[in-house]
């Protein structure tokens, strides 16, 4: 009954291997350092969770950063009040963001389509502004919520005296820093990927896909879709909360900018860039965007001069001048161009490109339909 199809097992094992080997295969790209690897894992979790709502159920939320931010704040508060251990922080963050998603989802899901998107955007922007103004005692406003020496840390104080300086997050006594933190995050990425995989393949996932292809028809056949959409919303909200908490664990600081609409837009970009509705797509999208943000933005004129060093002097200067507009501060421009190219030529995201290439090598077999057409394929029930 619980058997997984072989294809899924292969996908899962392959994914796990790729994630765990990231410190090795990202070396040539200059991205194999713990902090960025953490971000790769964390934002991949965020995007995988977002895909459950957007890719699977077809509800485009423009406010998912709110849950991400709430998760971060909850985790930091757990560090401040309870313990520096990561586990209470994670549980606390997931529960709080889940409840928050339940409240927002309950209200927003009364509408669908563009109205739903606008409602979520409004709620997220509201949370962001509240974090800046009314909730400053909880969020510490623009400065961001940080650990301090005067925090109570009730659980920690029961077992040990405070050490000198600020403590850092631990996992059952092991300090979570460097590559330990990465494997901690990677474990959660693999686990959440597995859950997403199971959700997609389950009858519940089937219902979500049904809602995406034609919700009205679902209603007419007598299915009440609200509980399903709400469940999907809460699940993806909890994913976001988990990601936010992990970000706070690897770097114990929470700022309101994590809830800004740009952060919400970023996860939408990640999902579309990678391929909405696919399992691996959002992960690839998250990695691409984080790579651009952290590596492309750090390329300065000095590095470019070296890179174009083989050209004659005048040409080198021109090459540096032109390319410098696309890196450093201009990384948004490059990202925008990549996004436009992908949306125009590969509407199904990077994953559609992968499928097309795969199809080239198997010319005899009937090619699997691309993401856009699977939805309109007749279902067995029809």
């Amino acid at each position, binding site marked *: 009954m619980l*058997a997984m*199809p072989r294809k899924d097992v292969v996908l899962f094992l392959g994914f796990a291997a790729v994630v765990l080997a990231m410190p090795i295969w990202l070396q040539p790209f200059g991205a194999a350092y713990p902090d960025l690897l953490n971000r790769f894992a964390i934002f991949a979790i965020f995007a995988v969770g977002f895909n459950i709502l957007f890719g699977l159920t077809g509800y485009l939320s423009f406010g998912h950063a709110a849950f991400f931010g709430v998760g971060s704040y909850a985790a930091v508060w757990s560090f401040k009040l309870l313990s520096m251990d990561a586990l209470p922080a994670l549980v606390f963050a997931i529960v709080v963001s889940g409840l928050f998603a339940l409240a927002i989802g309950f209200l927003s899901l009364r509408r669908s389509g563009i109205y739903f998107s606008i409602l979520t955007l409004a709620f997220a922007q509201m949370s962001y502004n509240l974090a800046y103004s009314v909730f400053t005692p909880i969020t510490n406003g623009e400065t961001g919520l*940080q650990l301090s020496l005067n925090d109570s840390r009730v659980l920690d104080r029961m077992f040990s005296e405070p050490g000198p300086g600020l403590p850092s997050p631990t996992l059952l006594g092991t300090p979570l820093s460097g590559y*330990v933190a990465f494997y901690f995050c990677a474990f959660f990425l693999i686990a959440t990927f597995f859950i997403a995989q199971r959700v997609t393949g389950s009858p519940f996932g089937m219902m979500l896909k049904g809602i995406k292809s034609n919700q009205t028809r679902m209603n007419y056949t007598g299915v009440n879709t609200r509980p399903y959409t709400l469940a999907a919303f809460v699940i993806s909200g909890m994913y976001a909360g988990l990601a936010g908490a992990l970000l706070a664990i690897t770097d114990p600081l929470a700022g309101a900018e994590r809830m800004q609409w740009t952060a919400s837009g970023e996860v939408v970009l990640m999902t579309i860039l990678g391929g909405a509705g696919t399992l691996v797509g959002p992960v690839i999208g998250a990695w691409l965007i984080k790579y651009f943000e952290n590596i492309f933005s750090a390329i300065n004129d000095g590095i470019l001069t070296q890179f174009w060093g083989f050209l004659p002097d005048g040409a080198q200067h021109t090459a540096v001048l032109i390319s410098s507009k696309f890196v450093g501060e201009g990384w948004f421009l490059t990202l925008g161009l990549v996004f436009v190219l992908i949306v125009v030529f590969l509407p199904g995201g990077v994953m559609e490109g992968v499928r097309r290439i795969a199809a080239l090598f198997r010319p005899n077999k009937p090619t699997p339909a691309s993401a856009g057409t699977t939805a309109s394929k007749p279902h067995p029930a029809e």
Partner: protein
Amino acid sequence: MTLLKRGLSRRRVLQTGMAGIIGTGVAPLMFTKGAWAQEFCNNPTGDTVTIGLNVPLTGAYAEEGADELRAYELAVKHLNGEGDGGLLNVLQPSALKGNGVLGKKVAFVTSDSQTKADVARAGATRMIERDGALMITGGSSSGVAVAVQGLCQEMGVIFMAGLTHSNDTTGKDKKRYGFRHFFNAYQSGVALGPVLGQEYGKDRKAYHLTADYTWGWTQEESMKNATEALGWETVAAVRTPLGAGDFSQFLTPVLNSGADVLILNHYGNDMVNSLTQAVQFGMRDREVNGKQFQIVVPLFSELMAKGAGANIKGIFGTSNWHWNLQDAGTKAFTKSFGAEYGAPPSQAAHTCYVQTLLYADACERAGTFYPPEVIKALEGHDFDGMGNGPTTYRAEDHQCMKNVLVVRGTENPTSEYDVLEVVQEVSRDAVDYDPSIFGGDLGPAEPAPMC
């Protein structure tokens, strides 16, 4: 293969999956463990030493960030013995030789902090973990400086703060690995208070607009204390979001509040926007309570003054340093900066340049890059010749104690750079304070095995 064809049970997948995860997860740890064997974080082994420049190139403080970056590049040049040597020639006492630091050439890596704490920490971590930065410096926002300083304390990497004016940076949030040359909001209040009393009288009603983060909060508090000591009344203090762009919704209530002084606790583009809008609202032409309405900008910079144009004429504020001072250090720095970039340096550029030199000098004096020794060399260090008069790096809170300038927007500028004039140079004894008033704890000097 028959097993797979039948399909796997969930338990079986979990079992093999976990074994694989643990196996692959542990293996690379054995290789990376060796990376910690170095004596301290990013001990330079080659013939270069890398410093990490974390400056805002986008956002509300981008102008300051760009100028800071220019100053850093100049400082690195001078340290490596290129150019005219700048302040290397006038620093007293100096251990710098103009051949790099401890015989190693200085190189740098940069990161755009975007004036966001999250981004700045990510950038600093990248420079430490990937690029091997031995020291992090920069910042044009106290929120960012406090966040990055905390990170550097954890990593055991020295942080030489650039432009940060909040009392918290060397007060409540001071760190053993963080050092600040710039002055702070408390000193602004102490220096500016008497001048305001003299110019505007003892019976005034002040309205504060405050950037809503650590710097704004402490400056608002310091200005309140200073003006209320004069006998002024504080009508209201309103917090505005950083990078708001449009301040008209915050300025309208000022007109009907009965206040006759507007104190703008804003900086960078925010200050340019809020001041310009306040002038457009006709505030400077108003008379309230029988007195001329006045605007005060407690922290001023040349770049902001240029941005605000004619609106800034006659407005009082304070500055860390001004290029038009007549001491040898200021002249030398203005000359070499002007020769390189064709414009006089801002106070942000000055403080960043000086911080870089002071760090290099401390390494030379300590004879090592080992952070606890460098920290010892900086703590309680007395020096002169950097344009601020005799200065002490106070050991208790890592704050530089030096003169503070009270400045005013020039009424009849003679050139496009002649935007501020120095009204008074307040001596360091007058702006001295007890380091314990802000609380906080420096923490340990021994680096944690984090890097």
